């Protein structure tokens, strides 16, 4: 049981600053996901919580006590690594028992804990095997088992599912979440996969280039992305971004190519007359009658996924490209013209220069 608090945490390697002051309070029992593209510093941040990297500036505290100078062993944390980092010469049992053995726990207690954890993870039959005799998913479970037996204050996950195949990833994702809920241990989970982030996290921290761009629940972030970067990173396929101009009263949008439509509610009078970036998620386009349509899309290519259909096309004089996602199977021919509308609550505006969201 633990609360974790990051206060203005900085990290520099040599002269390069890689984490530029991140603050976040993680509640007891919360599952928090750090999401970002590779190289954004998300693993570094996790490793700083673990104690594997020093903290250049700022404080990390667990249950109110600053742990900056504590060794990883003294922070009462457990970590699942991307490549699992199982000890190759030890059996599964010994792998799981090792941390307890170092902590001089009585043998009977070690045995009980390992067997209990193995039962939860359904790896009892593999306890005598070596890691190399296990499949990826089984190794993953052992790595989790090694954490569970310790009964730590905090779980740390460093992209634990990225070495698994797609199907197993979905299954393990669900299991990790169930396990975390059952044990109710504060967890920090690093990933570059936005679906993992959306499904696992109570809250997520979206990172870009060493900054925490947005912290919030997955739905908050999906509905109100704070910047253009977040908007493009969350959601698949990615959000469409269209350069647009606002009318002086902020009630109308004009796209390149002479397409204009009015914003029904939630107009932006403060930004009237500005050039902005309009963001529309592919799933928010709706087919409409020709006369009410906001835009007319000529289809270039479609991908039928079964549950839904991805349509790639262009519109307007300058052939702006657009991706949409329509429910069900849609058999459209190439070069068909689709008439589309978007509910105005699903329009996102971003500042052209800073990329920041324009609040409505």
């Amino acid at each position: 049981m633990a609360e974790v608090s990051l206060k203005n945490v900085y990290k520099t390697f040599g002269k390069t600053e890689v984490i530029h002051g991140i603050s976040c309070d993680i509640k007891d029992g919360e599952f928090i996901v750090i999401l970002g593209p590779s190289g954004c510093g998300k693993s570094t941040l996790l490793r700083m919580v673990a104690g594997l990297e020093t903290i250049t500036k700022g404080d990390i505290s667990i249950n109110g006590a600053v742990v900056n100078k504590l060794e990883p062993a003294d922070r009462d944390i457990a970590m699942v690594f991307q490549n699992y980092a199982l000890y190759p010469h030890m059996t599964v049992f010994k792998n799981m028992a090792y941390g307890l053995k170092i902590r001089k726990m009585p043998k009977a207690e070690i045995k009980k804990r390992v067997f209990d954890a193995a039962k939860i993870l359904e790896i009892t039959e593999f306890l005598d095997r070596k890691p190399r005799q296990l499949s990826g998913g089984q190794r993953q479970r052992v790595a989790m088992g090694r954490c569970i037996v310790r009964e730590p204050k905090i779980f740390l996950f460093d992209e634990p599912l990225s070495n698994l195949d797609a199907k197993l990833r979905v299954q393990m994702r669900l299991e990790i979440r169930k396990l975390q809920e059952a044990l109710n241990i504060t967890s920090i989970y690093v990933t570059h996969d936005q679906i993992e982030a959306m499904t696992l996290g109570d809250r997520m921290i979206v990172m870009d280039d060493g900054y925490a761009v947005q912290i919030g629940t997955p739905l908050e972030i999906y509905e109100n992305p704070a910047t253009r970067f977040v908007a493009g990173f969350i959601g698949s396929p990615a959000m469409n971004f269209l350069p647009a101009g606002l009318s002086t009263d902020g009630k109308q949008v004009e796209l390149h190519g002479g397409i204009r439509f009015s914003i029904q509610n939630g107009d932006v009078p403060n930004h009237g007359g500005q050039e902005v970036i309009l963001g529309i998620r592919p799933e928010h386009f709706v087919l409409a009658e020709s006369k009410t349509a906001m835009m007319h899309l000529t289809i270039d290519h479609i991908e039928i996924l079964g549950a839904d259909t991805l349509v790639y096309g262009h519109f307007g004089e300058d052939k702006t490209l657009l991706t949409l996602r329509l429910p069900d199977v849609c058999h459209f021919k190439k070069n068909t013209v689709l008439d589309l509308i978007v509910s105005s609550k699903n329009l996102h505006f971003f500042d052209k220069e800073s990329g920041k969201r324009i609040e409505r």
Partner: protein
Amino acid sequence: MVEHRPWLTFLTHAILIFGMLLLVIPIYVTFVASSHTLHEITSNFSLLPGSHLIENYKTALSVGPKDVGATVGTMMLNSLIMALGITFGKITISLLAAYAIVYFKFPFRMFFFWLIFITLMLPVEVRILPTYKVAADLKMLDSYSGLIFPLIASATATFLFRQFFMTVPDELCEAVKIDGGGPIRFFFDILLPMSRTSIAALFVILFIYGWNQYLWPLLITTDENYYTLLIGIKRMLDVGEGQAEWQIIMASTILAMIPPILIVIFMQKQFVKGMTETEK
């Protein structure tokens, strides 16, 4: 590749057999000679084993060749102590040196690594006089420590272990840290067991290296009690005007071959594993 060319099969086998004979015949002759009396060898040497085999080996092991002053048994023991000392010493020191270089950050780390590496270019023969002087000043002449310690540092083994340690994922070290272990635990619980096969392979190579040392023991020992077998054999040949005791010399030679052969036979499996398999 499946080939059915009888001629090729015949030719390859012929070459193999020829090569094998080339290696085996001298050893066979040595063995046969060790089973005859001196008179039989010098007058009428037949290529069939004689009847004095046990007698010759007994003499070699318990009485020893004349003029040398030590029995073959003693010299074998000396050789064994030296070879094992060098082997264990080299492995221990190189493991520790490689561990320090790979896992610890200290000032001039690379400088020390290159310093070790440069010694690869200086074989025993090049530095033999200064080494002798040091050994003499430390009063290590005619002692086991004198035989072992000057040969114990090994750049090759250090380099080999360094390369191996660098292939061990860093996460293992971090996992131990999180599990609550320090550097000593990581070394003994994780790194050492993982290097088991490399150690076995090195053991074979280094034991034979140690057993076959000639120049250094020759320089440093004057007391017969510290002679190694190889020096002993050389001494047996230095009889001047007299008659060398060939049957004893040959018996000693065969005895000198046995320990390395045993090591290779018993450690062959680990040796091959260490050269080919990586456990990761």
